[in-house]
């Protein structure tokens, strides 16, 4: 009897947990719904009762888990763009993000959840591993996808309706090697990369290729994986003993922060060069920003840029979410505006089916030029494979903030 009572209690406790989790996400949904619905009513009264239905845009991303900083940033960035566009009247958007915790299996569930909700246009996934899983579904379901930041080639390869807003991994590796060679930053380079991660491997492979072509010498090439991502003393010692004067870190910011800490403890001070995954390191609670002093990275977005668009976006983001937006927020913001531009040009309406929208958007995206927060003044274009073409910006961390390198 006692056992039964305890079992019952445990069940109740589990149910509570489930509803507690569910409650949180639904409350945030409510919040976004209510914000968009208030704007709907605002515009409808302004436009004289034009309550056209909205395009439903869905996406998945790590809203929890160790890479949640990216998912939350992308969601926030996209939400700002959606709110701005809805306030203009005209085309209306509804945005819904589901959590995939950077796990491909959960991403498929999350994708199905937004699909059931009625998603017509997709923002794909925020990170690469889930992106590869959901892009297959996007292709099969003929739902157009523009991912802000799932950067692996496999995400877009062979899928005519999946596009990227970010650089692909090979692109980043190549651009990083080019940048290091052109700026004459170092001749002896060490790379530490994560060999169970497609993102890290993709960047590493093309970086090595490009570096060899440009006469950069790679003196140390070491790896880590999920299981041993705590101790980097061996990798750092290898770089040090081979005389590397620059360490290239194609990885996310969490292991990168450990590498910086451990290099500092060893008294080893090479230059560090990161990629877009490094973005976010400064917003870790408790992180000693002086460790990241002088760390360089290539990113498509510079929150310090002085153009009007960027400043307005940064200001709004800081006001709403209390932190400086990173490039994931900017990429997602650009995604929404790029979709907006394409929908307007193709004169789409929300009652069109996802297949019709898909065809219309593919046609637009392969022909249009888009100007957004990311990239430079030359605009952003896409080729038929869904790969983006835009120019990266070199950044360096000085006194705890990103400063443009040029």
């Amino acid at each position: 009897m006692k056992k039964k009572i305890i079992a019952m209690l445990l069940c109740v406790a589990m149910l509570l947990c489930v509803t507690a989790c569910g409650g949180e996400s639904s409350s945030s949904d409510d919040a976004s719904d209510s914000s968009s619905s208030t704007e709907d009513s605002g515009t409808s009264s302004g436009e004289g009762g034009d309550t056209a239905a909205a395009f439903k845009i869905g996406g998945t991303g790590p809203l929890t888990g160790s890479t949640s900083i990216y998912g939350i940033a992308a969601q926030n960035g996209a939400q700002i763009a959606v709110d701005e566009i809805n306030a203009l009247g005209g085309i209306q958007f509804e945005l819904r993000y589901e959590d995939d915790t950077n796990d491909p299996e959960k991403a498929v569930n999350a994708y199905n959840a937004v699909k059931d909700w009625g998603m017509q246009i997709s923002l794909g996934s925020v990170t690469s591993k889930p992106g590869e899983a959901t892009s297959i579904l996007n292709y099969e379901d003929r739902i157009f996808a523009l991912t802000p930041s799932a950067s692996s080639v496999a995400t877009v390869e062979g899928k005519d309706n999946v596009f990227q807003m970010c650089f692909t991994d090979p692109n980043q590796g190549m651009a990083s090697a080019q940048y290091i060679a052109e700026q004459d930053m170092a001749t002896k380079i060490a790379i530490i990369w994560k060999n169970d991660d497609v993102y890290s491997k993709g960047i590493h492979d093309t970086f090595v290729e490009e570096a060899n072509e440009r006469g950069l010498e790679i003196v140390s090439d070491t790896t880590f994986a999920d299981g041993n991502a705590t101790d980097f003393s061996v990798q750092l010692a290898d770089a040090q003993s081979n005389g590397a004067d620059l360490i290239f870190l194609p990885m996310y910011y969490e292991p990168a922060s450990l590498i910086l800490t451990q290099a500092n403890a060893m008294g080893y001070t090479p230059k560090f060069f990161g990629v877009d995954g490094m973005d976010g390191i400064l917003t870790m609670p408790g992180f000693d920003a002086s460790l990241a002093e002088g760390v360089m990275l290539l990113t498509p977005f510079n929150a310090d840029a002085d153009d009007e668009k960027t400043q307005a976006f940064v200001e709004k983001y800081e006001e709403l979410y209390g932190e400086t937006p990173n490039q994931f927020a900017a990429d997602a913001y650009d995604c929404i505006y790029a979709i907006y531009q394409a929908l307007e040009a193709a004169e789409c309406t929300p009652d069109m089916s996802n297949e019709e929208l898909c065809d219309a958007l593919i046609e637009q995206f392969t022909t249009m030029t888009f100007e957004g927060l990311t990239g430079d003044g030359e605009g952003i274009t896409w080729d038929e494979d869904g790969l983006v073409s835009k120019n990266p910006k070199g950044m360096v961390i000085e006194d705890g903030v990103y400063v443009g390198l040029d």
Partner: protein
Amino acid sequence: MSFLNFLISGISLGSIYAIIALGYTMVYGIAKMLNFAHGDVIMVGAYICFYAVFSFELPPIVGILMAIAVCTVLGIVIEKLAYKPLRSAPSLAVLITAIGVSYFLQNAAQLLWTSSPKVFPRFFNFGGQASVSFFGGQLSVSWTTIITIITCIIIMLALTWFTGKTKRGKAMRACSEDKGAAQLMGINVDATISMTFAIGSGLAAIAGVLLCSAYPTLVPTTGSMPGIKAFTAAVFGGIGSIPGALLGGLLLGIIEIMAKAYISTQLSDAIVFAVLIIVLLVKPAGLLGKRVNEKV
């Protein structure tokens, strides 16, 4: 000199595994169950300490004591709610429950403390230095490593003394040998097992603080991978054997670092587990484990 440096890195990694393995092995030795939630209790301890020091700006020692207190209570609660009802169930059911508890703790931590990584503060600075140098700076050992090893040895000695000499310790050993007979001898089996979990979880809190002092990124899954490695270390040293946990942990850390340094960074985990398999083939009870002959 680089060999010595790698050895020191290996020892510092190994000492972390060892201190986690002590908790595993102790609970296994007494309750005869693998508490897979141990790694996650470690994570909870680290979070408690992080918030006490970082948000409430309490002195580190208060943070550590708070972590120990919270984890001890947590250990007792987990035991009462999740494991005690299964006391007579097959051990597989208990094992699955432990995995469930592990996921429960991870997800609860994610809800409570969000998943964005926290950077654990550096406690062990003496005279403004985070490490001691030898041979004119060619070798340096961090204070965290020294403190971890000292703590490990103290805990190992204390546990050996406790289980060997005290009345409650003897009761624990009696329970581990035969619960039924121990009960007949007037030992309160439930209370004894609860106490085992309390001690194990208190040790987990200390391990959590030391783990995060050495490798300062703290996320809700911080405990899971070191937990699995420490479990391996406990099996390696002979599960149930307290000195075995220390030896197994240190060896595992050293093998891992040496494999990375001299063979391949890609293969280091494969090599670690290959060594484990070989050891278990030769000595199925682990390095210091005792082969218990079951009387029929």
